[in-house]
């Protein structure tokens, strides 16, 4: 129960941060990237502020003598350090979509609570995209598996 309540509150802090920062406002997001048009540099302060806290914060958390999280058994941190085509192509694709809609997943999810039709449309399409990509990944993996056998 404690775990659920604390995680709920963390989601709330994240959501308030997103809503305050402007990340859930497509006009502001698109203007951040529109350097040759109606440029609004505000969002550099969002990523800057977040990393300013998260970089030393992560370091302190992981450096704790207990070596594990307060309510969990281990830190689930990706260990993969290899750059590959999938990562770069996927990120480039994400950038294209973000540039078209002005919402990224973290910007849209808290805004779902406003029931704004554009946010709901984006989120439905986002979920459809996630399922499509997962299905394609499973298919490719299966093909690769049968080709190897």
């Amino acid at each position, binding site marked *: 129960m404690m775990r659920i309540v604390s995680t709920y509150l963390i989601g709330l802090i994240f959501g308030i941060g997103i809503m305050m920062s402007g990340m859930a406002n497509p006009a502001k997001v*698109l203007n951040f990237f529109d350097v040759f048009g109606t440029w609004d540099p505000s969002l550099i302060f969002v990523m800057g*502020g977040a990393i300013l806290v998260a970089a030393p914060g992560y370091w302190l958390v992981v450096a704790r003598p207990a070596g594990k999280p307060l309510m969990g058994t281990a830190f689930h941190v990706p260990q993969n350090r290899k750059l590959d085509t999938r990562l770069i192509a*996927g990120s480039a694709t994400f950038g294209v979509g973000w540039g078209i809609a002005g919402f990224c997943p973290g910007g849209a999810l808290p805004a779902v609570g406003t029931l704004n039709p554009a946010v709901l449309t984006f989120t439905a399409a986002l979920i459809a995209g996630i399922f499509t990509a997962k299905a394609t*990944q499973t298919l490719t993996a299966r093909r690769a598996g049968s080709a190897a056998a």
Partner: protein
Amino acid sequence: MTTEFTPFLSLFGGLLIGSSTVLLMLTLGRILGATGVLAGFLQPASASDWSWRAALLAGMVTAPALMTLVTGQQPTIQVPVSTLMMVLGGFIVGIGVTYGAGCTSGHGVCGMARFSPRSIAATVTFMIFTAITVYVVRHVIGV
């Protein structure tokens, strides 16, 4: 559509985002990436793995209502693009973040804060491609 330059509000929002990220690592040992949290919520590995994701998402979506209650005004959401572009953009984002294994929160904040080479490469890549797309849409196609 012009928007107001809000350095302090955006910085404060960023500090809250960073704090929530550190708190989730401290309590559950998890990365706070919207893509990963949502994907695991939609296709859960187990009941206990699903419950924390559901709680986190519940917290996120209740944030606007709480803010409206406290400040007395709705958060600003200005949408300068068509519904078709929302559908298209959303679908492409879904494909991209799944293959790229993360988005602005997972790679751009959590991964950058861990100095992960993959996340740095991913963040640089999507920032460049978003800028190119916005340029093409606004100044070449002229939507």
